[in-house]
Structure formats: structure tokens, C-alpha cells
């Protein structure tokens, strides 16, 4: 069996291995032990009936004495799961000698194993490599890969006063999002699926239903999948039929089902006025990653281009290239960059590679850039190189100009959006996410096209609502109804 890109994965911690793991550094309490035992029973799978969740991640081998007990204990669960059409992926966390564990997984009927270190070994079972976020081997042969060290989406704690968002130093609430990383994975590992591994924060109460919905939406809207992970309190409460816990679970499943019913959106490509170019690796990884994160937070619509790929020509919507790396372009890239500029594009870089005879022109005093007019376009060179990712993102937005925004949010508060377009350029999608647990009121989406109406999609509703636009030259305003977690505006036309 191969890895299935349609898998909807969920962590299923249970059994002797998880109990042993939780027994350190202090003794596990009786309630938690009972919960972990309960989730190991086949009856626990009843929870999944009617949901899109079809792949469970179970602990398989950690190189501890409890490994074999775990594998034995899981047998009834695996058998019951298979009867329900559920696939199982065993997590193997061994530094070496994974072969025996993988063989045992194969014998037990697991569909795949998730490995921290594949080390180029081949196994007779599909493997899902898992990497820390800053060490992802983008060239992995696996069609599904996973990253750890992601963030739980939502408002940053430093911008919270009780339940209310307060402005940060940049004037907007800081939000934690994995969106930029999912977009990066979409470029560096094309045609592959990223599973984001992150757990809910440890809180004293059940998490707000919106928190789980956001964890789903922040992954799916940007093209990745969250390995669903419930907090201990929710997992303890669900088997007991707690109505509040059931509500949280149902809301989350509703969000997953919504995205499963819109799988066609996964083929949509980010729509960008700007292409961000880097190798996104090694010494360039931090700056380039942060710039992506901050550009996304500023609502700048961008595409990502790995430095080794061919550079684009100016096309409708693409106005600028941001060359982030210190490394100079190759001879071929150099001519591509100059062609882009001569045709009217803007290249933003930390060094000048244009014609030597061109001298910089006067510039706005607020921008620490030298501006060179070349052909119909410009090259903007950061006078002191690229140092502060925040400043790079601010300057880039100004250099490209808000006049070129494709989408803008009004009354954004803790919301953000992602614009994408279908490969045939007939459908455009603007997905709006609310990172606060409080509904966002009076958010208006402005798009740079004159469109009469849009289809408004929201989790929990089967059919789209038609939203009428209000002309706001040169585009159109769409006033959203109160936004709990997520909505998507879909536009159709022949000239997108």
C-alpha cells in the first residue's frame, strides 16, 4: 500500500507506551491513565464514525521496554480500525535500528510508519519522514512528510489582555500561524503533502471550540494538514459523553469535513503581486522564513520561488521580485531579472546587478533604498542589506505599493487572508481566518476586481451564500457577516 494523500490524520495516543512516556518525570495520575487505556479500546473508535478522520497515528516503537507491550496491546484496536476503513501509521522514534520495528509494523498491518530519521534506508513499508521545521529535507522521496516545532495558531500571548486583543508594537495584534510554512512547503516540496505536527496548549479548561477549528483552517487554507491532536481534558471528557467536549469535537470535525468537501481548492495556487526568491535553506532560512511570515501577516499577497527555479516574466498581478539571498544570481538568472525589470517589473535586492552606467535616482526619504531606473522598471537596492525581517517586509510592501494590493481587509484586527487562484484562472478564492477566539465583526474584504457578487463559504453550512459586492474603485468591497473562525469568498470570471 502507498501513502494516501487523502488521509486525514489524527494522533491516537494510548496504551502502555504512552502511559510509560507520561509516567516521566512524575507519576501519571489515575484519570489520565484511565483515559489512555480507554482510548486503546476498539470501542473508542466509535468516535470517528461519520467523521472524515481516516488515519490514526499510534505510538509504535520508542526503543523502550514497553514497545512490545504496546504493539501487542494495539492489536484489537488495529483490527477494529481496519474493519472501519481506518489506516494506521505507527510512530517509530528510534535513533538506529528501525528495521525491526518497521517489520513489526508491516506484520501488524500498519499502513505506514512515521520516522524521525530515515537516514536513506529503504523499508518494505511506506514511510512518512518527520523533521524539525528548520531541518526539513525538502527533497524527501516520500509523498507525505511531517514537520514538528510548529505553532498553535491563535493570538500571541503578549498581545492578549484577558480575552481581548491588544495592539502590538506594529499596530496589529501578533498572531501565531503556520501559514507561511505551509506555503513554503508547497513550493519546496511540490506535489507532496505536509502534515503539521503540533499539540494544543496546556490549559486549565477545555479549549474554545474555535481553537480547534482554527488549527484545522490555518493548515488547510494554506495547503497542509494538521495531525489532529486533542488535549488531555478533551480526550478524558469525550468518552464520558461530556456535552461541552462533544460540542468542541463536532465543531472541529465540521471544519475538517468542510475542507474535505472543497478538496478542489488544494489545486489552487497562491496569487501574488510579489515573488519571494530564496533557497530558503541554511543561512538564508531564518531571514527568508521570517520575511514570508511577516509579509503574510501584513496581508501582502506573494508567491514563493525557489532560487534554482526559472524566474517569471511580469504577468498580470506579478509586479515585483524580492531576491532575498546574498548570493548573486547566476548568469542566466541575471538576464531573467533584468528582462523582468526592463519590461516594467521591480526587483528588490540587497546588491545592485544592473547596468553599471545607471545611477540611482532620488527616493522617498523614508526608504533606505537606492532606486535604479532600468528600462520600464526599477531595481531597489537596500542600502544596508537585508538585516531585519520586519523592516524588509514593511519596505517591500511600500516599494511594491499598496496600489498593487490584490486583496485588503478592513477592520482586520486578528484576521488574515490568503488569496489563490485555480490553475485555469477561472476561479479566485480569498480565505479569511480569524485568529481570535472572539468573533470578528464588520470585517470587509476588498478585492481589486470589479465583481458583482461572491460565494461565501463557511464551515457548518452546506451551501454557499451569495454576497453582493459594493463598488469601491478600483475594486469591490464585500462586508462579511460576523466571522467566527473561517470563511472563503469564491469568485468566478473569465478575466482573473
Amino acid at each position, binding site marked *: 500500500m502507498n501513502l494516501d494523500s487523502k488521509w486525514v490524520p489524527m494522533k491516537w495516543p494510548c496504551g502502555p507506551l504512552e502511559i510509560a512516556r507520561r509516567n516521566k518525570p512524575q507519576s501519571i495520575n489515575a484519570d489520565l491513565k484511565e483515559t489512555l487505556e480507554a482510548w486503546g479500546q476498539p470501542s473508542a473508535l466509535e468516535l470517528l464514525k461519520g467523521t472524515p478522520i481516516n488515519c490514526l497515528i499510534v505510538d509504535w516503537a520508542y526503543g523502550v521496554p514497553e514497545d512490545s507491550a504496546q504493539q501487542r496491546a494495539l492489536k484489537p484496536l488495529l483490527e477494529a480500525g481496519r474493519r472501519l476503513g481506518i489506516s494506521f501509521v505507527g510512530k517509530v522514534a528510534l535513533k538506529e535500528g528501525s528495521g525491526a520495528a518497521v517489520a513489526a509494523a508491516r506484520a501488524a498491518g500498519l499502513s505506514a510508519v512515521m520516522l524521525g530519521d530515515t537516514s536513506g534506508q529503504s523499508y518494505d513499508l511506506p514511510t512518512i519522514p518527520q523533521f524539525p521545521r528548520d531541518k526539513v529535507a525538502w527533497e524527501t522521496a516520500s509523498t507525505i512528510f511531517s514537520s514538528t516545532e510548529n505553532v498553535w495558531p491563535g493570538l500571541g500571548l503578549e498581545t492578549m489582555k484577558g480575552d481581548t486583543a491588544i495592539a502590538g508594537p506594529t*499596530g496589529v495584534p501578533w498572531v501565531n500561524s503556520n501559514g507561511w510554512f505551509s506555503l513554503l512547503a508547497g513550493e519546496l516540496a511540490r506535489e507532496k503533502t505536509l502534515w503539521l505536527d503540533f499539540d494544543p496548549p496546556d490549559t486549565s479548561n477545555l479549549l474554545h471550540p474555535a481553537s480547534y477549528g482554527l488549527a484545522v483552517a490555518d493548515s488547510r487554507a494554506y495547503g497542509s494538514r494538521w495531525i489532529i491532536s486533542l488535549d488531555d481534558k478533551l480526550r478524558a471528557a469525550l468518552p464520558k459523553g461530556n456535552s461541552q467536549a462533544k460540542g468542541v469535537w463536532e465543531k472541529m470535525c465540521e471544519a475538517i469535513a468542510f475542507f474535505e468537501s472543497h478538496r478542489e481548492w488544494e489545486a489552487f495556487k497562491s496569487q501574488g503581486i510579489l515573488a519571494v526568491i530564496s533557497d530558503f535553506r541554511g543561512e538564508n532560512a531564518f531571514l527568508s522564513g521570517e520575511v514570508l511570515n511577516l509579509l503574510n501577516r501584513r496581508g501582502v499577497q506573494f508567491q514563493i520561488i525557489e532560487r534554482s527555479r526559472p524566474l517569471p516574466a511580469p504577468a498580470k498581478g506579478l509586479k515585483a521580485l524580492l531576491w532575498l539571498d546574498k548570493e548573486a544570481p547566476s548568469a542566466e538568472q541575471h538576464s531573467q531579472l533584468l528582462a523582468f525589470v526592463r519590461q516594467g517589473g521591480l526587483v528588490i535586492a540587497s546588491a545592485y546587478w544592473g547596468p553599471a552606467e545607471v545611477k540611482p535616482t532620488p527616493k*522617498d526619504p523614508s526608504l533606505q533604498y537606492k532606486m535604479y531606473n532600468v528600462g520600464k522598471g526599477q531595481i531597489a537596492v537596500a542600502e544596508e542589506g537585508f538585516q531585519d525581517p520586519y523592516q524588509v517586509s514593511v519596505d517591500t510592501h511600500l516599494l511594491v505599493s499598496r496600489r498593487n494590493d490584490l486583496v485588503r481587509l478592513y477592520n482586520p484586527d486578528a484576521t488574515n487572508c490568503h488569496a489563490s487562484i485555480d490553475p485555469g484562472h477561472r476561479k479566485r478564492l480569498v480565505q479569511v481566518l480569524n485568529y481570535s477566539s472572539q468573533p470578528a465583526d464588520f470585517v470587509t474584504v476588498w478585492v481589486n476586481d470589479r465583481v458583482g457578487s461572491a460565494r461565501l463559504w463557511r464551515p457548518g453550512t452546506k451551501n454557499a451564500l451569495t454576497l453582493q459586492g459594493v463598488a469601491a474603485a478600483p475594486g469591490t468591497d464585500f462586508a462579511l457577516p460576523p466571522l467566527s473562525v473561517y470563511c472563503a469568498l469564491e469568485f468566478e470570471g473569465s478575466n482573473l
Partner: protein
Amino acid sequence: MITTTCSRRKFIGAVGATAGAWLARPAMFLAHAAPASRVAVGMCHEYGPEVIVALGNMFDQLGGMERLVRGKTVAIKLNLTGVGTNRLGSLPPGITYWVHPQVIGATVHLLAKAGAHRIRLLESPMVTTEPLEEFMLQANWEPRDFLSAGARVEFENTNYLGNGKKYSRFWVPGGGLMFKGYDLNHSYEDCDVFVSLAKLKEHTTAGITLSMKNCFGITPCTIYGEGAPEDEPGLVPRGGRGPFHWMNRLPPKSAPPPVNASALSSNPPKDPGGYSVPRVVADLVAARPVHLAIIDGIHTMTGGEGPWVTGRRHVQPGLLVAGTNCVATDAVGMALMGFDPMADRGTPPFETCDSTLRLAEQLGVGTRDLNQIEVLGTPIAKARFNFRSV
């Protein structure tokens, strides 16, 4: 980054020592010398072509703009408070808390037509040095519309040094109420005519914000903002104008010093913003005189100065006000809002603050006494839109 902070008491101590002397004897200042003035009131119900007609008539009623602006460089301070992505409900800022682009365009067009040599649109947008055009674009405005409204139209963000080589110093005649003088962007000096183009609004801290309070925003946050350095202006603003509200921080030593009011240090005001902000505003309009005050009250909001204020509401008074004296113009504006321009602290709209009008009047800037103001165009009684009764 080096920053200067001090306690409110210390700030007041520094500010109050000099001011105390005149506060004790306000009559010795120039109230009696306040000039009489003429103010035009026009009815205009929408932001369409009718704006230019209404404003043109009002300028004619004031004696025409030609003698004021012909051959001159005109600087227009716009009221673009907050950020353009903030809306009151779904309504764009020009409909609620910013001066509307139609009013800006009409003003530029009429002043250019009257012979202005150059027109500069100015604002100090909150905590940013970005070009003013970019700030406007964020609100979905098109700055090119203003460029085409006159022959030589320019923009400058005055929240920092901008295109200038140094800040311009403006001393307050009579010594000032809060500071002896203010360091401002060069644009406020490099002009022959200064116009305050404001919105008709109430204000949480200052009671009202009309043509005078609009000038609060001429102060650069590199000097008067929260993150300004201790000795010299910052290169970029690091915070808003909180120090004027909270009296908790002094500007860099390079700026003119605060007025010394020892009386205040022993008896600090309960509401520092309500004390300080009106005084700073009065200082500013005394130091940087306003030649033409225009107030956009066609559409606006009640309850405060922006959508961040609770209890606010969009309203449509359908009014334009213009005058060549900012105190008189604001007095008429207040009356049109249903307030008594002679009101002072404790009386609406100055429930928790001092009256900027009274303070400016005492500095000799103008009169707030409607008996000394000639109201042209639509009578106040006919045009009044009571802000507290809607």
C-alpha cells in the same frame, strides 16, 4: 534604543513651574485682544459635485481665496487620524472620521484655481514614516486624484524629518501653556499659507476635534511620541502621542523645554489628557497660525474621534464650515454641533477636559464668542445638528 521616561508627577513638575504663574492670573493674557472674524456655513448633503459648489460659495463669502493664496505655497493639514483600515462598521473612514477625499479634492482645486503656486498635503500618520500616498492607498484612496485637482500638488508625511534637513522650531507667543515651543517638520515652515482641513467630531480627550485639534497631529512622533530618544529626535517614530495624553514622558532634550509649572506639581490634574491636550493644541495654533480653517461635517460620527471609541455612531449633518480664524471657526462648529462655545470644563462637550477654545482665546488666537463672529451663509439655528440628541 535610549528612551526617556519619567513619572507623571515629574513631568507635571517640569511643565508646571512656569505655566503656574500665568494660570494663576489668566486675565493678564490676551483674551481682550482676540480678533473678531467671519465664518461661513454651508449645507451640503453628499460627497458629490455639490461639495465644490458649496465650498466655492463659502470661500466667496469669506472674500475669496485669491488674496490669500495667489502665488503662495499652501500647506494643508488633513485629518487622517488612526489607520485607514479601521472602519466604523463597514463605512469607509472618509464617511465617518477622516476628512473626505471629495472635500480635500475640492479644496485643492479651489485653492489652485485661486492662484496657489504650490499645494502640499500634510499629515503625520500614526507611528509610520511611510509616504502619505501609501497611507492613503491603504484606505483605498487614490492620491493621483489630488494631484490632478491642482497644478503643483505634493504630499509629505510630517511624522518625522521627511524631506527636510532639520526640524523647524515654532515658539509659542507668550511663552506657551505646556511647552515654550515645538519642533515640527519643515513643511509647516516652508509654506506661506497654512490650512487646517478637519472633520466635525467629538473627541474623547479634548471634547471636540475641529480645525484646532486637527493641528495636534502636526507634532512629529520622532520627538513627541512614546519611543522618542532622550537627547535627539528619533529617525522613525516608535509610538504614538501618548506622552501628551499621559504627561509621563518628556520629548528629547533637543526640543524646546516644557513650561515650568511648579503649581501643577503640587496639585496634578486628575485627568492629565484633559489638561494637557487642549493646552498643547492651543500652543500649536498660536505658534503655527492657521490661515484657513475648513471643517467637513457632511458625514461624520458622534461619540468620539474614531471607530475605536465606544458608543459611536455615523451621522449625516450635511455641513461644511470655513473661516480664516481657527478659534472662531471652531466656535461656530461647536454651536452647529449643539454645544455652547463658551462652555468650559465640566460642561458638555468638555466634561473631563479644559476648553481648547478658551485656552486659544486666552493666547490671543481668536474669539469663541459668537457675538463677535459674523456667520455667513446658512444661519447656525437652521443648520444645527445636535450631536448629543441623535
